[in-house]
């Protein structure tokens, strides 16, 4: 396997204007940079006429402590001068500390507008739950095994080890060298379950794929019935 992106790196969490939540870096206790695109809560029109202060809330699980803070604007600057839906946009930032023992973060945001109304960014009341794939999963094998001469297809093999609390694992894979082939979701099978962790493998000893297939994939896994995604920090995983 290729090295996983940003293993051991200080964590960073980004909330983009197109409503994606990106977890980057590793689960390292200590400072975590939070980046938030204000256009998630403020329209560009409002940004041009009003000042806004966006507050972030973080609850650390399972330790239970909370943090909240105002997302920083550069001194004295109205948001309107910075928000820009074109180009590279602008991120408000804050830094909080991830406590020892934390493995999941629950986040939500509020913004009070000039009319006194408070708007929330909370995944429709459920809050945003984030975990670190680097801490939860280890990719033991992700490999396209070449077919024997007599076989028509190669085989895509997976082996993933996880923390015990992971309830299910599925891979969403597509063939990069056959881009019109639709993405396929394959649940992995738990083939080992010990107090130290679980092992997940592809069903039936492997997934048939065309000869010469090149496979890119991400992993979706569930903890407490909530889905989390590990997409190799936005770069995708590429099978060997």
């Amino acid at each position, binding site marked *: 396997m290729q090295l996983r992106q940003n293993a051991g790196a200080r964590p*960073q969490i*980004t909330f983009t204007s197109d409503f994606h939540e990106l977890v980057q870096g590793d689960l390292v206790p200590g400072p975590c940079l939070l980046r938030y695109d204000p256009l998630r809560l403020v329209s560009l029109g409002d940004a041009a006429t009003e000042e806004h202060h966006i507050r972030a809330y973080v609850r650390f699980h399972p330790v239970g402590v909370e943090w909240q803070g105002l997302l920083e604007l550069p001194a004295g600057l109205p948001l309107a001068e910075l928000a820009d839906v*074109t*180009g590279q946009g602008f991120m408000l930032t804050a830094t909080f500390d991830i406590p020892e023992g934390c493995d999941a973060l629950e986040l939500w945001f509020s913004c009070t507008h000039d009319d006194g109304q408070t708007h929330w960014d909370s995944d429709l009341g459920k809050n945003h739950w984030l975990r670190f794939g680097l801490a939860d999963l280890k990719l033991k094998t992700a490999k396209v095994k070449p077919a024997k001469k007599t076989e028509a297809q190669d085989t895509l093999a997976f082996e993933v080890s996880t923390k015990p609390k992971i309830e299910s694992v599925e891979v969403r894979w597509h063939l990069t060298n056959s*881009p019109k082939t639709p993405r396929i979701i394959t649940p992995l099978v738990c083939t080992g379950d010990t107090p130290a962790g679980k092992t997940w493998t592809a069903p039936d000893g492997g997934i048939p794929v065309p000869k010469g297939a*090149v496979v890119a994939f991400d992993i979706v896994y569930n903890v407490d019935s909530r889905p989390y995604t590990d997409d190799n920090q936005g770069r995708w995983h590429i099978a060997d």
Partner: protein
Amino acid sequence: MSTSFPFVYPDQFTPNNPGWSTVGNIASWSPDATGRRFTFTFGQNNAYSLYIEVLGATAYRLRFTPVPGATYTTETSTAVVDRDLGISGLNVTSSQPNAQTLQINTGAITIQVGLAPFYVQVYRNGQLIHQDAPGQGVLYIPGQQVIAIMKTAPSGASYYGLGEKAGQDLQKNQFTFTFFNFDNFTYNGPSEGQPGPLNPTEPLYCSIPVLVEYDPTPSGAFSGSAFATGLFLDNCGQTFANVSANDYSNMDGKYYLGGLYNELDTYFFAGSVVPDILRQYTTLTGRAPMPPRYAFGFHQGAYGYFDRYKLAAAANSYRAARIPCDGLHIDVDFQDNYRTFTHSEMKFPNTKELFDDLHLIGFKMSTNITPIITTNVLNQAGEKAPYVQGDALKAANALIYNTRYESGEDPNLYQGGVNYGVNYGNNPYPYPPLQPNNQGQTPLTAPGNYPDFGLTNVREVWGQQYQDLIQNVGLDMIWQDMTCPAIDANLPPSQQYFKTFPQDLMMAQEEVDPTTGKVVATNYLPNAQLHNSYVNNLLHATWDGINALAPQRRNFIIARGGYAGMQRYAGLWTGDSASSWDFLNINIPEVLNLGMSGVPISGCDIGGFAKGSGSVGGTSVIGGTVVGGITNYELFTRWMQLGSFLPWYRNHYDGYNKQFQEAFAYGEPVPTNCRTYVELRYTMMQIYYDAMFEWTQTGLPICRPLFLNEPQDQGVYGNSNYYLDSQFFVGGDFLVAPMLFQAVTASPPISPTRDLYLPAGSNWYAFQNNQAPLLGAVQGGTVISYYADLNLVPTYVRAGAILPFQHLEQWVGELPANPLTINCYPGPDRWTDGQAYQLYQDDGITQNAETKGEYRISRIYQQTLTNNGTTRQVRIARVTDNYTPPSPFNYIGILGSITSAYQVTRDGTTLPNVGDPDSLESSTVDAWYWNQSLNIVFVKIFDNRTDTLVSASY
């Protein structure tokens, strides 16, 4: 940890506050064997030292390493190439008029050094022209690396240069600055106060810490003749300048340069006028050979020419619209899945054939080369395919390791990445493994490693990787982008800092023995100490590489960043501008100050790269096509017009967010109003070329601020410097006063009228481009309120000017032979060598001028004799004559001929009057005619004499 070397805002670098040490009393001093270098020891146990070395009659270097025991035996600069600023024959003497003073005399200046305590003053002919701020001067904090030099700012002095800086003021008095190469998208980066293009405190892409001072009317302690000085801080870490800006302290009457790390390595230059300073500074940091002539043509680039059809459509549309254009610049769209140095046969099938075809219709091709080697194993087809150029760099061990400051060696390579924005669905091509999200948008990014350009062998290997593009594909020039290098801001803090390398990332720096030029040691230092030099090493690598691969032709690089000395390798565009009137307004001061920082070729992305306040409406993608986001037509027209007079003339935009920005794509009258000035650019091409040649000899920029050509005229500072900020010269005699504000599309509309100033000491003619007779000359010192519709840029020509024009071409070299029309304006005589116009001619594209001396320099003189009537005489004398231009003849235009000449002679032989332009054009012998409607006598002379005199008698 990157936080060990934080970015420091200008008001947090505080050498004017207490807590800094001065040199204090000198314990001992001594000259070296050359008699030009004087070393001073001081401090505890006399452990500290600095030296002052005379480099020429009006230049010295002051170098101070703020650690005990400094030896000063090696050099590491990427900026400086020649410290001989006139050493030959120089007689440096020194004396001690008293125990506290050392005087170093060069014959032109006296450097007076105080010994108890240390200070420096400079006198010229007994007049004080430069001094340390009393009680300050050289500043440092023992045990740290911070250094600064504090100077007195004479009360009447103005300050210029400082490289690429935002702001609409040409003068940089009362501002504070920092130099840290930064990917400052739309100039909205870190700043004191509100960011934006009007704020000069922001770091930009190019860092040149040279400060040029001009005091036209010295007073007080500096009383005497006008003088100019220059102070260059050669330090590639983050540096600072403060010119009497009271942002954190009282800086009245003072200025400083300083840095966070490295040596205090300063160079001082003195002169009477600013050109004296530029000559010395560009000798020190180097000048380039003549660029290819097409560099001064019009160029078009876009992020969004993502396949051959888009590219060919742009090319063919330019030709169909008859808007001249030379360069086509294709962004990273050209690459195979963001693999630097590659091209995509998927998007640009038969690329070589395509380029060959485009070459046939005059286009020169360029593409973006960013210093990243992607680690994505997939090519554009989604296959795990070899990446030849990347593999070569890896095999050469050329990439930076992830070793951090004081953290031990890391066996892994540093991995950063680039962010190329978002594909909103307009670009149908794959970038595996990237996939569109559920909104159909694909963030375009690539992870990658970065070469360690501080190493000679890495630069060599990097240069070799252009082989396919240059020798097989047919690429003509290089667009060097992301030079900081720009790293994806979305990466975690350990992978990027301020959108570039983490400050603690260790990189190589070579130490050179100054006597042998050989590398004697290699240091590994954190990026914080080397940051601004990364781009110079990158440009050096590219320059050497493409010259080795295409040694017969003249190569060209246009770069998005640089450090002092970058002009040896590349021109500069000023980064990611936005479509706004503010960006149009800063264009002139920015380019003019770059010219006064040694960079002759620079310009802004015409029309704005990104969307801005001058963009009309939102952008959406409909049916796979970007719709909207078009730059306001008035802003665009004015920008195309201004750009036509600036050295680098490229329209460049983000086609993922803008529907179009090419002039031909607008409705009329935009194409017509733009075409007029693109055409003027091409007919004036020789003037830009001559001005560029002058730069190669003197360091005088192509585009010059008013005061540079008119140093005695106080009127240029009038109207609160409005004229200084908004007017300039092309060369010596062509004055431009562009329209820089919204008028016809303003709400409510206002009159497109501006004030312009015609400098005193000359008379001026409104430029008519030989389309109408000259109007009466306007006396210099006059302010004119000028009404300029969208089809007009106010332009004036100095009386007595000699300006060579040429026939219109759709691209440089379209006409096999393009005769000059040497326009001679009525006015004061130019009959001495110093007054004559210097005409430089070569083939414009090969290295023959540089390597074989195949060029011609001619001097063109004119005078008016008034004995027995009036005779206008024009003399053309070849000074260097190793090149024959293709055109067998040229024309002389004697403007202001309000009556026909009764006789025109050449070297005493009377020429025939053929009576009309067609007959003149077809004449096979020297001849002339008078154009009554233009009041111009046109003389056709064959290019067959080394020195010839044409006389027109009236």
